Structure formats: C-alpha cells, structure tokens
C-alpha cells in the first residue's frame, strides 16, 4: 500500500477519529495530536491493515485506545483536565435559551459522563454506527452497548431538564 492509497482509505475516517478524540480529550490540540499519532501508527502497520476486514472500525478502536491511554497518563501526572467551572455560565438570564448555548450545555453534560458512555454516544448518535460496528470498536456485546447508550441518553436529557428548571426559577 503506498501513501496515496493509504490517504484515500484513511481520509473518510479522519474526521470521525478527530471527533472521537475531541469527545474524550476535550482539547482541540490534544485531539489533533491524537489523530496524527494514530494515523502514523496505522501507516507504520499499513501492511497488516489489509488483514483487518474493517479498516474504519480498526482505526476507531486504535483512536479510542490511544485517547484512553492519554487520559490515564494525564491522571497519573495529576494533569487531569477538569471542566467543572461551567456552573456559573448558565445563571445568566435569557441568553441561555439560545440554541448555541443549549448545544454547549450538552457537550458539558457529555463531559461529565463516564468514558464508555461518551464513546458509545459519540459512535451511535453522532457518527451513526450500527450496533454491530460499535461492538467491534468497543469490544462489548450489543446488549451492554444498548444499556450504556440508554443511560447516556437519559442522563443527558435529565441534566438538560435540570438546567432548564434552574434557569426558570
């Protein structure tokens, strides 16, 4: 596989990898670095790539593992990025009803979810993967994925409702 075909194969997945990394790592720079690193990893293993039936699922799995590793090492270094300072933002009166702010709220709620739920929500609701593909990436069975996804969806909605009622009172 030469460079051109590799880029051709990887290009459609690149954005998805970036979004997944962004969901987990939050910082745009780290997400970009992560994507770059994973692509290099894939490139160095390009000869084996043919053996993997579904390159996209494989690329996503590698990205997921890489980001989780990154988070782990950050925790070990006491450099964990904590975005808990968002509470004060939504006190402001009517602006928060703007859609943009609401969308931001969701990403903030998503940040509070456990990694597994973040990943599954990202893969299903944003990238629109089939459960079968998700189970490959996550290395989980479909039932467990559905349960986790359901928890994530409900949590997001409940948190959103909570924020709304705080806004009104």
């Amino acid at each position, binding site marked *: 596989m030469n460079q051109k075909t*590799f880029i051709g194969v990887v290009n459609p997945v690149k954005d998805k990898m*970036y979004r997944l990394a962004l969901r987990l790592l939050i910082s745009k720079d780290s997400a*970009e670095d992560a994507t770059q690193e994973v692509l*290099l990893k894939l490139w160095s293993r390009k000869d084996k790539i043919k053996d993997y039936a579904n390159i996209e699922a494989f690329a996503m799995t590698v990205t997921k593992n890489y980001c989780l590793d990154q988070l782990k090492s950050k925790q070990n270094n006491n450099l964990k990025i904590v975005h808990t300072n968002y509470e004060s933002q939504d006190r402001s009166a009517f602006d928060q009803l703007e859609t943009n702010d609401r969308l931001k709220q*969701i990403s903030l709620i998503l940040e509070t979810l456990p990694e597994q739920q973040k990943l599954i929500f990202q893969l299903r609701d944003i990238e629109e993967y089939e459960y079968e593909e998700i189970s490959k990436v996550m290395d989980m069975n479909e039932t467990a994925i559905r*349960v986790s996804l359901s928890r994530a*969806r409900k949590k997001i*909605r409940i948190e*959103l409702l909570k924020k709304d009622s705080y806004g009104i009172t």
Partner: protein
Amino acid sequence: MELHKLESLVKRYDDGGTTLEEEKLLKKYFHSEKVPEHLKEYEVIFSFSEEEKNICHPGKFKLKSDKKWYAIIGVAASILIAFGIFTFQENQQQNFPQNELGTIETPEEAYFKAKETLQMVAQIMNNSKEELVYLDEFNKTKNQIIKIK
C-alpha cells in the same frame, strides 16, 4: 408524525431500542417540524448530534514525522562535533613535541643553549632595569612633599 407515534419512538430512543433509520427519522423530524413543548429537550439533543457531525479535522496530517529526522540530524551533528574536537586536540598534541622540541641531541649543546637563553633573558632584564631610572624623578618629588628622613 402523530404525537403518540413520536412519543413511543422517543421512548424507545431513550431505551436504546431504535434502529439507525428510526433515529434518522427522529433527527429529521426534530430538525424540521414544530416540536411539542414537553419534547423540547430532544430537539436540542438531536440538533447537537447534527452539529457535532460537522466538526472536521483541521488541516492535513503528515505521514512521516519530522521529529524523527530532527533527532537523527541532531545526533549526527553532535557526533561530528565531538569527533572533530577530539581529532583537533590530538593533532595539536602531536604537532607540539615534533616541531618545537627534541632538536638538540647532546647534553653539552643543551647546556650551552640553555645558558645562552638565560643570558639573553638576563640582558633584557638589565636593559629594562635601566629604564627604571626615571622612577627616581618621581621619588625626588615625593620626598620633597613627604619628608621621611
């Protein structure tokens, strides 16, 4: 879409029971139609999913990392420099004894050479000492001001 159908679909969505097609249908519905008040938050959730899908990886990625090359070049350069310094120093050490020393062979010759050199040094010293006479002038003036004797 009728309300009861929508509600059951949303319920199944919450439980993780919808298929991709149904979810696409929901996204389309919440994107385009007037949403009942009690389902407002789904509108936000679905538009969030749609928005997030548009995020793209910025710029191009590089397949060959430059960092590796920088490292290799750096190591090569430092080896060259270290090597250069060593050979330079070694050359200097070798040049010195060869050209400047070891030309005198007999002890007598060495003795005379040394004597000659010392004589020359002594002569230069004496010459310079004569120049010091001028210092007396300073002393005279000094003695006029400060009378020690």
